[in-house]
């Protein structure tokens, strides 16, 4: 149990997928301008990443490895994630309309999110078992959501701040992301 806890802390704080691994920068800068869109996107990522991490792990362990087709991993994962997101969208629309209304517009954005793909690859590269893959996928996504929400909070404040003209917009966003990343490195000694 404590292993999973450590893994969770590591995934959320120390090896934060956004701030330490620097994956998924596009939504990090794109949808972090407003708090409510950031939380919506965060929830959608948690949902999709957990599913995708597990499914890709199953495909890798039960299909690719036995058939000796590991070199196809990248292309297969891309295909599977894209199809999965589409499937989830169709499924939710019919079965859980309330959830669809909340996550709806963010789901297609995730299809091309490299954080999802990154976690799927890390899952197999680290040789996780099923439970580990599940926990790692979920907690990585939580880390992603946390970073996104923090960033949104900062950027809402930046909207009223006096920022030198050359740094306005994405530039200051990246600088801020850098500082956040440095701050998260402070968690390094925790585990």
């Amino acid at each position, binding site marked *: 149990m404590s292993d999973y806890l450590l893994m969770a802390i590591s995934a959320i704080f120390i090896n934060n997928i956004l701030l330490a691994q620097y994956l998924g920068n596009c939504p990090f800068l794109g949808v972090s301008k407003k708090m409510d869109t950031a939380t919506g996107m965060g929830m959608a990522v948690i949902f999709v990443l957990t599913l995708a991490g597990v499914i890709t792990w199953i495909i890798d362990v039960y*299909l690719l490895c036995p*058939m*000796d*087709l590991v*070199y*196809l991993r990248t*292309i*297969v994962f891309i*295909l*599977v994630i894209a*199809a999965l997101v*589409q*499937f989830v969208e*169709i*499924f939710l*629309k*019919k*079965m859980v309309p309330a959830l669809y209304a909340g996550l709806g*517009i963010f789901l297609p954005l995730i299809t091309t999110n490299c954080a999802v793909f990154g976690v799927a690859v890390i899952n197999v590269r680290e040789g996780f078992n099923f439970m580990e893959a599940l926990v790692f996928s979920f907690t990585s996504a939580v880390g992603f959501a946390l970073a996104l929400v923090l960033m949104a909070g900062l950027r809402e404040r930046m909207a*009223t*701040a*006096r920022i030198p003209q050359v740094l306005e917009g994405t530039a200051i966003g990246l600088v801020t992301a850098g500082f956040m990343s440095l701050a998260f490195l402070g968690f390094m000694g925790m585990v």
Partner: protein
Amino acid sequence: MLSALLFLLALGVISGILLGIASKAFYVYEDPRIEQVENCLPGANCGGCGYAGCGAAAGAVVGGKAEPDVCIAGGNDVAQAVAAVMGMVVEMAEPQFALQTCAGGIRAETKFNYLGINDCRALALLYRGDKECEKACLGLGTCFRNCKFGAITMGTQGLPIFHSEFCTGCGKCEEVCPNGTIKVQRSTERILEFNTYSDRLAPCQQTCPAEIDIPKYIDHIKNGRYEQAVLTIKERNPFILSCGRVCPHPCEEMCRRTLGDDPVSINQLKRFVADYEMNTGRHLQIPIGSDTGHKIAVIGAGPAGLSSAYFLRRLGHSVTIYEMQPKLGGMLYYGIPEYRLPKKILGWEIQGILDLGIDVRTNVKFGVDFDLESLVASGYEAVILAVGAWKYSSARLDREDETIGVEGGTIYLERQGLGIPNPIGKTVGVIGGGNTAMDAARSSVRLGAEKVYIIYRRTEKEMPANPEEIEAAKEEGIEFLFLAAPNNIIDKDGRLTHLEYLKMKLGEPDDSGRRRPIPIEGSETRLPLDNLVLAIGQYSDLSFVDSNRRISGVEKTKWNSIKCDEDTNQTSIPYVFAAGDAFIDGPGIAVEAIGNGRQAARSIHLLFSDESMKFSKDKLRVKGNKGHIPGTIFDKIEGIDKKGRISLPQMDPKVRIHSVDEVDLTISEEEALKEANRCMNCCLTCYDKDAKKVNA
């Protein structure tokens, strides 16, 4: 190699099949129009409509939750395209624009120096900003930086300038302005607005009974935007030609330029732009709200009736006016003589109002030809009683009704309006000191009377008539008998020969602040007269109240006007409203009737939308020189150059007494610009110090 190919192929096929099955199994019917509508929208996902992105907005439109004009950023073209998909016809959606309500900006005095973040919101956190006036524009341009459409630029006076041609009415600027100086509104929404203590209003605008935005229209004139000036006035007053001629302009009395100079000739500027519109030969287009289907009957086509009809029509209601006279205009037509307001000009102005889509029935009298019952039966949901004040007050003289040659001022003037011959002797006396008395006297001169007297019991200082009118009457050879009270009518065979009057002296001031006249005993004097006109007051003919059961519920006041709520115009019958001279406080000037007509229109509009008609507590109630926003009637201004106001161009008195041609003439464009530049563009507490440089 082959296995890889097969694997990918199989994976692709499986995913494809799975997705295919899923889309069948989890099929949700979606209106194909949603996609079509979404294709019409700009796809910016700006959220300005209040929905999460364009797709959600499209869903709302198809679901009937939003109108085709949901997209604010897209404007009319998008609305038309969406409506086409939906098979609906969208009426030209009325655009909404952002407006700056503060005239001060950097003109306002500052409390402290600010060196912080260049953002209005940050500055406002420090004691509500650096300006002495707490409602002032802070001028750091947060609105300008937040406008995505380039519709705002920062002007030299530190105020944002709004460019309506680029403004989409998205409301972002209004949202970010910490002092609330920006308002985003449709022009019909502004019809419902009345002055409040929290508004930024110049003294003249606070005083105007119709609440016209005077500094704004003068500013338009200053910059040569005459059509804009016309539209600004017409937001509050449809009678710009008439008021430009006959308004006694109470606004000018509060003009702050008076502190070091003559007041700005506001009314002549109004007349100048009004004539400018008329000379173009066409009425400027007035925006009208979409049809609501509510029907309203207006009784009386005077300034109050036509004004309420005009504003109700602009709010989208359908209005029918019933008028007892053959011509429209009420007292403007039958009370004001041709030489002050030519019938042709009045007719052109009224036609412009009717062209908005207002029906009219003339020659029908309420209580005689039709009554409240028949109006209700015809489907009218509200009725406005704007019946005016057509009865004249008695002078309390013996036999004044029977004696030939003695008659009421309203009847005397009405006869001229009707085109009936007005037989008149050589000497005419007019009792009264108001504008009706001046009109009767000056009309008599034109009808061929050789000697005309105005008999008034106080002195010239107490006369309620406009000073211009008194001056013009004097020029036309009319003799004023001040401090003279009629005492007795002397007749021979029932025909007037003399008026006996008592001389008066002034005593202590009475409730109205005017000194009370006291008769001097034994001072009876006889004045030989052929005609005597009584112009001492008017009241409403409310005989219809007793005409049938349904209307008899309307209560009257002791001054013979209709009892109604002061703010809502609502009478004791909830769907019956009173306006104009028939309103509780009785007869007044045209511009009061016009403002009151708008108030009645507002109440009816709110009645239909089930909203409260009551005004908020901070409604501004100005009466004369009382009730202004505290601190705005400042009594000292430095640096005013004495320029003097433009003179009133008039026809030569020797010529004009022989014709009914208009006496007062329009000022030239050059003079109008000169006069407009004298306006200091006062707001609440600051005025334009730079105006001095402008006129230099």
